């Protein structure tokens, strides 16, 4: 489903964030990309959704070469993913419901269908009772779960999470981990970039370890 071979990324200015990275992730896998900060985890995720382009190598997602994708096709690539960010990237001027509805709005769902899906996603992350609230009134853990609801509402086949538990205490982190496990159990490919060892121990996923922008080991 996702295949990288000999991928390198050099930023303008000369710093090489990734060097000769290659791995495959099959459909339905639960994979963690680990490494200390600066190892290239975030760059790798950015390459997968064409926020950045590789300087060398190929990245294939669902048979599409992401590295050479036309700008026009990028939005449609991104709709295959559910993206979860460490800083949530919520829109604070609209309600919890409207935040989750955003991907459906973009994809052009009808209001009735969208409403049903939004409530299902909010229910899944335990935020249904806050649907009319503004995100600013939610706690950090709730905001992260809201971000997850937005990521899954359009039923993407791949979930990408960048340090999803970075700012959360242990209880919240466990909730998030269980959510990832449940999505993976229904067949969603889940890719998590993290250095959270507790989360790693709990979910026991496949690990792709990076060290200074290169593959440290593959298991």
């Amino acid at each position: 489903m996702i295949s990288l071979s000999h991928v390198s990324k050099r930023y303008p200015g000369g710093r090489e964030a990734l060097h000769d990275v290659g791995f495959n992730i099959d459909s339905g896998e639960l994979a963690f990309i680990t490494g200390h900060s600066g190892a290239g985890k975030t760059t790798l995720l950015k390459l997968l959704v064409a926020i950045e382009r590789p300087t060398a190598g190929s990245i294939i997602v669902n048979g599409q070469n992401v590295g050479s994708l036309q700008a026009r096709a990028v939005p449609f690539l991104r709709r295959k993913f559910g993206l979860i960010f460490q800083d949530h990237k919520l829109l604070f001027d609209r309600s919890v419901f409207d935040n989750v509805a955003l991907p459906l709005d973009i994809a052009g769902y009808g209001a009735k269908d969208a409403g049903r899906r939004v409530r299902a996603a909010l229910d899944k992350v335990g935020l249904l009772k806050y649907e009319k609230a503004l995100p600013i009134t939610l706690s950090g853990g709730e905001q992260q779960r809201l971000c997850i609801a937005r990521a899954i509402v359009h039923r993407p086949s791949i979930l990408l999470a960048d340090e999803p538990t970075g700012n959360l205490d242990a209880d919240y982190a466990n909730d998030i981990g269980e959510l990832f496990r449940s999505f993976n159990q229904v067949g969603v490919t889940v890719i998590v970039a993290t250095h959270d060892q507790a989360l790693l121990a709990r979910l026991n996923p496949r690990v792709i370890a990076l060290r200074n922008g290169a593959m440290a080991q593959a298991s």
Partner: protein
Amino acid sequence: MKAWAAQHARCFAATFVRLARTPLGSLFNILVIGIALSLPVGLYVLIDNLQAASGHLAAEPQISAFLALDASRAEIALIETRLKQNARVQRYRFVPRDQALQELKQSSGLADVIDNLPQNPLPDAFIVSARDNTPQALESLREEIAQWPRVVHAQLDAAWARRLDATLRFGRALVLILGGLLAVALIAVTFNTIRLQVLTQREEVEVVKLIGATDAFIRRPFLYYGALQGAAGGVVAWLIVTGAVWLVNRNLGELSHVYASLFQLRQLTPLDSAVLLALPLALGWFGAWLSVGRHLRVIEP
């Protein structure tokens, strides 16, 4: 198709909300656009009315030759022969003094005054059209006629009509120039408004780009905003011009009552109104399109 329409409807509603969220800023923007637009439109209405008022006046120049009050029939016949034989005269018409008085009575609304005159003060006259209508030829023909016996005064009639015509042409050019300049100004105002909006909504733009929004989707609310702002400016301009014409007509009504003639300014026609609404709408859309295309490129997640 239905989903697409719903998406547009949602976007339109959201645009309204956005306009209403900053009521004062939006209001002033719309007022600026409306007042600016009302200038060329008001001028257009004025010129249009002047043209309509002068429309029945012949633009073809004529020479009026006024005879002495005591000119005899024989003397009049002599002048008529001269006109008939003159190669430079295309045609002529004799206006006897009684007929002239009747015409004045009917057209000026001064009937009461004229009825009280002890005698007819108007002379007999010939209205002469020349073969060659260049100013020099007309002037020399006028001078020739003026020197004939019993002709007291010869006058080029159409001079003022042609002057008015030229003035109207100048006015129309002015409307075009003013309109063109203000169209550019409208685009500039919209460009700037949308630039500020894109910058304040930078985060939102970034987020929706990340979750798979196409450029068209991101552009849409800004384009709607620009178009809506332009159209609202058009409505304001329409209200200003219509209100002004109404006000002028009310005052003219009293004035023309006194002078026993009816002159009213024509209001904007439905076609004028439609153009006044559609043009700023299109210009606002265009300004927003320029702005959003330029500023969205800068914002990449």
